[in-house]
């Protein structure tokens, strides 16, 4: 199936090469230098250096001079400069996409470097937008980077996305994925989707004129807490390389108007089996975004994803009491009698543990209740405090009244009590 794009979104056959966003910076469509007068004169010309740089593209009939000029004229927005955004940005820059918008508000953390190849060891602590701009500039100084140092929200998404031809979704949470999708449907911009977890990834192209959107695939997000994040569940560092590069490939094909894009298909990537599968996607006639069009404006995506309800439910339930690592260390020093329970997974326990803790992974806490004494004091911990809060809730619901959650988990234990416990 070939991509069918809204004429406002991309310039394949439309004689006006750019969608109706703000006028491009002066000089972007400068008069030809005499090297590339062929074809659409509204497209920017290539300098001699660019002609040489892109020579492997120019000798491909499917790209050629005109295609390379389309790439130079194109404006692609990357939402997220993390695992997926890294390879996507690097390849789009190398391929000669003229303008890359980047939306991110995070700083580089050492745990990002296992997969986020836009950033290096020397960038730890820097805003991701700064290290991304440096790296992109090194790969291809002809690329203009437009940074948006902000979280994408219902208040700014339409305004930002309207300025671009194509959006590459490299976000890491459900509220932003639905936000990106809806904003793309409302503005008519293709949403080049990619998503990863552990060893598996998904890719597609949503929100084209006739194709389905993300809501056609998943009508609603899972309730908060059901699907762990990559920080909790882990991700193979190479997987975003595979999926992000697929996203970049699709963006380039959309710009050039060549090949068969992933419109109407969901590509499943299984890195463990190294299998790629194509599933058919259809537009859902009942989809509120692209089917019935009852969605005419962006909504509250935290609310849609149940995060506010979860927070409210948390307030209604008896609160989980917290205890700091220093307080636990003081209890031990005093010789207090209590049980310390580690609810992480066995492979995490193998990396680092708090001496004397009993391992009961979260999924097995319910089964282990009969082995615990409800009259004793219990402190539960995990890596950072999230899973152990759920374990504490399970115990509290089962009638344990002397349960404390270790604030900050083993990570903070390492910071505050015992630096010999490695952080991961």
């Amino acid at each position, binding site marked *: 199936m070939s991509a069918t794009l809204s004429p406002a979104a991309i310039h394949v056959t439309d004689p006006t090469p750019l969608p109706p966003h703000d006028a491009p910076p002066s000089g972007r469509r400068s008069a030809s230098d005499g090297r590339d007068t062929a074809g659409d004169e509204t497209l920017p010309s290539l300098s001699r250096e660019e002609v040489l740089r892109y020579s492997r593209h120019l000798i491909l009939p499917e790209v050629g001079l005109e295609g390379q000029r389309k790439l130079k004229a194109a404006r692609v927005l990357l939402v997220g400069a*993390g695992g*997926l955004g890294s390879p996507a940005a690097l390849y789009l820059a190398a391929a000669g996409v003229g303008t890359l918008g980047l939306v991110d508000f995070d700083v580089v953390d050492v745990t990002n470097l296992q997969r986020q190849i836009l950033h290096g060891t020397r960038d730890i602590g820097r805003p991701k937008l700064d290290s991304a701009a440096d790296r992109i500039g090194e790969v291809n100084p002809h690329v203009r980077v437009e940074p948006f140092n902000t979280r994408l929200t219902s208040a700014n998404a339409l305004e930002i996305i309207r300025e671009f031809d194509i959006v590459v979704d490299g976000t*890491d949470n459900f509220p932003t994925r639905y936000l990106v999708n809806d904003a793309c449907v409302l503005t008519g911009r293709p949403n080049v989707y990619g998503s990863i*977890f552990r060893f598996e990834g*998904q890719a597609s192209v949503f929100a084209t004129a006739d194709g389905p959107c993300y809501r056609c695939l998943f009508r609603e997000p*899972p309730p908060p807490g059901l*699907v762990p994040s*990559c920080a909790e569940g882990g991700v193979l560092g190479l997987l975003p390389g595979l999926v992000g590069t697929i996203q970049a490939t699709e963006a380039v094909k959309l710009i050039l108007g060549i090949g068969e894009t992933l419109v109407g298909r969901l590509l499943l990537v*299984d890195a463990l089996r190294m299998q790629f599968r194509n599933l*058919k996607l259809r537009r859902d006639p009942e989809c509120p975004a692209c089917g019935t069009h009852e969605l005419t404006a962006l909504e509250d995506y935290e609310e849609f994803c149940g995060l506010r309800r979860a927070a409210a439910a948390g307030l209604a339930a008896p609160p989980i009491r917290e205890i700091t690592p220093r307080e636990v260390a003081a209890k031990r020093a005093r010789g207090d009698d209590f049980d310390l329970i580690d609810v992480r997974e066995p492979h995490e326990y193998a990396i680092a543990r708090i001496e004397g803790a009993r391992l009961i992974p979260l999924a097995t806490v319910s089964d282990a209740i009969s082995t615990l004494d409800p009259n004793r004091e219990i402190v539960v911990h995990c890596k950072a405090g999230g899973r152990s809060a759920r374990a504490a809730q399970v115990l509290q619901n089962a009638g344990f009244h002397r349960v404390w959650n270790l604030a900050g988990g083993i990570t903070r234990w390492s910071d505050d009590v015992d630096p010999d416990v490695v952080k991961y």
Partner: protein
Amino acid sequence: MPITITLPNVLARLAEGHRTVAGTGGTLGDVVADVSNQFPSLRARLVDDGGNPYPFVTYYLNDEDIRFAGGFGAPVRDGDEVIIVPAVAGG
């Protein structure tokens, strides 16, 4: 030959580590119920309390989204293949 269901990695541990499980029945719903009986801890991840698919888990029967092919009422035949695709958000 029964109907095979391919699980995402994340659910395989609830099926004793199997990525592919097999079930029998006249409809997709029957097959899912059969598999849920074989692996009780899978049930809550496959269907909601009413036995229906969740809106954040998409079932494919022979590469077609079941919502456009009769849902859990879709008739199945021996050798059919079901793929379960959960919503994931990592990036």
